């Protein structure tokens, strides 16, 4: 699926960007994400501070979905634009959001 397909799933787009998504990953521990997440991943988390962008850029994560209705910091959004990481938010929890993505074929 494409990053833009996330909008159709009901996730609210915060910053621009597109690209092919092959995997999904759910975790709030940054080291764990870096160690395990693959490139072309959409990452579901409740971490909203700027560092998630560094983690995403290093790992090759294309999109971040911030769950449970949390909001991204202003800095985070700025940095995401610079690094071309697509940010989304949702009121769903990570499990529910992940289910939707799993249904779409992400693994």
């Amino acid at each position, binding site marked *: 699926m494409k990053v833009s397909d996330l909008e159709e799933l009901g996730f609210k787009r915060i910053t621009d960007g597109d690209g092919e998504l092959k995997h999904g990953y759910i975790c709030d521990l*940054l080291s764990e994400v*870096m160690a395990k997440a693959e490139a072309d991943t959409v990452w579901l988390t409740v971490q909203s501070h700027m560092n*998630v962008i560094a983690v995403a850029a290093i790992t090759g994560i294309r999109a971040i979905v911030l769950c449970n209705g949390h909001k991204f910091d202003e800095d985070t959004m700025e940095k995401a634009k610079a690094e071309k990481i697509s940010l989304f938010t949702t009121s769903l929890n990570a499990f529910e959001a992940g289910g939707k993505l799993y249904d779409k074929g992400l693994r």
Partner: protein
Amino acid sequence: MTKMEKIDDLIKRVQFYFKEVKVEEFMTSPVFTIRQDQATVRAKEAMRLRHFSGIPVVDENDKLVGIISIEDIIHVLESGDLNTPVSQNMSRKVVTLSKNELIVDVAKKFELHGFGRFPVVDEEKRVVGIVTQHDLVTILLSKLSILYVHDARREPFVHTENYRSVPTGISLKEEIPEFQFDIDYMDVSLAGTGASKLKKFLLSQGFSPKFVKRVAIATYEAETNVVIHSGSTGVINVYSKYGVLIVRVEDDGKGIEDVEVAMHEGYSTAPDYIREMGFGAGMGLANIKRCADKMMIISEPGKGVVIEMDFWGHENESF
């Protein structure tokens, strides 16, 4: 350089870190001795079975009178009689150490006399320990908390050729880093800025994405450690030498109390607010170990941390 020169050279470079280390901290004790009236064949057998290269010889009051080495045994085998007492075949010129001698002086004695070992004696000349080159190297490494954690090539540490360029990086000092980043911020949310920049730099240099990801993750973890734990600023220097990419992350901060403990996955000293941000899971060093082909940590409380990570291309990553 000969092995001894290498050891001596290493000691000179790093003696600042352990000037105060005394013989009693690194000698082997208790020590196997042999009585001078025993047959030389006993000494030979002890060497064969226990892999000694030399044994201190004592009198009936346990006082040191000489030392018998493999060389002495060879002489006996050539032109003597193994049934003669040890006292006939041992060397009487023995250079000894005292428990309170400093490691630097011991290193000098090794250099000066060319012996493989020095017995340690007390005021009454009783043998209380022995110091070999091996003891010297071992204390060097442990005192510096140099952790030779991981080497894909599985070569014993002191025998690797690139060793000289690795543990203290002194030889790198004259090299101009290909990439440099000052970790001059204290805000943890900025952690990884240097690693991200390094990633872009390496990609622009034509390194393969897979390789670059490993380097970037390890660098991120090391950078984050500086920001969270050091209480100081730091620097990332990257060198490319002999097909190896060397990333050194250094700080002047408070250092690591016990590197071995810190290496355990899940061990962390990060405060709660850091953990809430998703850091401090105690995975940083483990992540580095996983990504780097070789890593070394040099640290002592109050003396900052140097993490050096070496990377070389794997089969599925063109370099």
